[in-house]
């Protein structure tokens, strides 16, 4: 990893819970709490967790779709780093939005059905005033778009067609092409393969990793699929109820998990071996508590096999264990 791209410190996101005729705020959901991260050129930060753990909120806060709290420092290619939380001047705003792109989970929902593929791909360029003024410039833009499509494994003649004419995997390729037309430095991938068929998932993963090798761009890879996150990531954060419970190098976290939740997650992944059938002996019971009624101590305490009195009352801090490894557990 050479240049830094994005750095988050104490990132938080609260969503209001509103009730009644006047939509009075009656409570806050802590969707994301005290999240620190750094991501540099060519690196991949993996985020794993189950639904409701805050991983999608995190991706959206990073891309500034949701306005978070705390600090999110962007290091541009040239010039001084700046915090992108709060209001920004237009140049900085545009620079950030150009360099940080996003790929969404569901390619059936993320492409406008009334736009042709060419229009879908041209829209980011138009938003940034890069689609060209003269006829000659426009022609070169079209050629570039055709190029992009071929790069993601589609034919250039797809430009004139509409999203409904494509399969899920092909649509996700179009979404990937759209995220790349502005030559971003960081792409946030929110469950990019979970809506796709098994046989197509690996095609899309290969495409993403191939592009990364060629261009040196960075990914934030959000998924509930442990094996997949391990495959693509350098550094992994395991999230539970809006907090990081364990983080570290991908291999370290998976080979020697220190947090009971990480252990439980790993034990819940099918073994692919009928002689093992380890799912049938897994000892994890219950479900995550409602984020509105979090336990006062460790959020995992009600389900944790190791929990004791201290876990009920005190929320564990994320403690460092060297080499970027951090764990939030009283017993780690």
């Amino acid at each position, binding site marked *: 990893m050479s240049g830094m791209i994005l750095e988050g410190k104490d990132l938080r996101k609260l969503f209001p819970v509103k009730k009644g005729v006047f939509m009075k705020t009656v409570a806050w959901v802590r969707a994301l709490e005290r999240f620190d991260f750094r991501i540099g050129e060519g690196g991949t930060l993996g985020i794993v967790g*189950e*639904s409701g753990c805050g991983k999608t909120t995190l991706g959206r806060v990073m891309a500034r779709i949701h306005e978070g709290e705390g600090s999110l420092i962007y290091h541009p290619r040239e010039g001084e780093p700046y915090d992108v939380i709060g209001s920004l001047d237009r140049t900085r705003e545009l620079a950030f939005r150009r360099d940080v792109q996003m790929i969404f989970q569901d390619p059936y929902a993320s492409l406008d059905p009334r736009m042709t593929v060419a229009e879908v791909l041209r829209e980011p360029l138009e938003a940034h005033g890069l689609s060209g003024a003269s006829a000659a410039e426009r022609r070169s833009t079209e050629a570039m778009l055709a190029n992009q499509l071929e790069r993601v494994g589609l034919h250039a003649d797809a430009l004139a067609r509409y999203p409904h004419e494509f*399969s*899920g*995997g*092909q649509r996700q390729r179009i979404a990937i092409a759209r995220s790349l037309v502005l030559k971003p430095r960081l792409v946030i991938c929110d469950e990019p393969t979970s809506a796709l*068929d*098994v*046989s*197509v*998932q*690996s*095609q899309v*993963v*290969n495409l993403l*990793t*191939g592009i990364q090798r060629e261009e040196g761009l960075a990914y934030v890879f959000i998924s*509930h*699929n*442990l*094996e*997949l996150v*391990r*495959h693509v990531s350098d550094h992994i954060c395991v999230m539970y109820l809006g907090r990081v419970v364990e983080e570290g190098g*991908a*291999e370290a976290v*998976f080979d020697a998990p220190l947090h009971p939740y990480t252990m*439980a*997650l790993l*034990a*819940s*992944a*099918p*073994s*692919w*071996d*009928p*002689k093992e*059938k*380890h*799912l*049938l002996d*897994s000892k*994890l*019971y219950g*479900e995550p508590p409602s984020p509105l009624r979090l336990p006062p101590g460790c959020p995992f305490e009600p389900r944790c096999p190791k929990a004791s009195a201290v876990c009920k009352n005190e929320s564990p801090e994320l403690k460092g264990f060297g080499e970027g490894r951090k764990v939030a557990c009283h017993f780690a």
Partner: protein
Amino acid sequence: METLLEIAGLSTRFLTFEGEVRAVEDISFSIAEGEILALVGESGCGKSVTARSVMGLYRGSRVAQEGSIRFRGRELKDLPETERASYRGKEMAMIFQEPMAAFDPLATVGAQMIDARLAHVSGSSGRDRAEARNLAVEALRSVGIPDPELRIDEYPHRLSGGMLQRVLIAIGLMNKPSLLIADEPTTALDMTIQAQVLRLIHDLRNETGMGVLFITHDLGVVAEVADRVHVMYAGRIVEKASVADLFDPECGPAHPYTKGLLESRVRRERKGMELPSIPGSVPRPLELSGGCRFAPRCAMAGPRCLREEPALAPAGERGSEAACWLREGSVA
């Protein structure tokens, strides 16, 4: 063990405005008491249509069905609707993929459970209702719902997805069916919850001796719960094997599609490498041509595969079957 369900030459076709969709074509299989048979395939391969055909959920002039569906030796396909209905939810029960969509949001789960019971008893007096309610509480207890006496009066939106899936299973089990059809019962659930639901189905099979038709796209799950596996592709069964043989490195799959599915699993040894994948995507049912349906995506395909469609036939020494010309040594 007695054979519960015997399907022979089942085809289900839908007449649409665009043409005839052959969703399921000429499939045959059987399930014995106490056996879990997995039907595996990607979206659109016909696995759900097979389940719904067995349950008799398709009626009307736009659906054409052929073949036979025998339950304990009795032909169900030509039964009048009233008699067919007496099987549905009693002898054979079905649980659906999305528990959130399977309930009526306006009735308590208890009311829906009591209805499911009263549909199959003669009376609906106060005493029958009270009896049905007791039965429902017991059913909820057996699937591991805490405080079933209280939970039974909750509305569906008050329960989480994993809880609702348990309730759905409880409804399916209330009338003590001898066959349970589970259509992707864990796909909408988180991993740690999936492990619990799989364990539940597995344990209930052991306790009650019911047969289970387990439909899934996830071969990892198959290895955990099933005894035998049938792989579907584009409306046909392309491979039948025991789970032990399919995942045994010394035996393994016989059909290139099954091989591709097994290989596209993300493995830790392949970190940083390309993942093996199956090129192309699943054909749309209207686009099927003659020959083997997998041939356009198959690396082993030869001229014969494009000409003639292979039928299921014994492959290997362990009793597997595959629909592939490779078993004859030549595809020329």
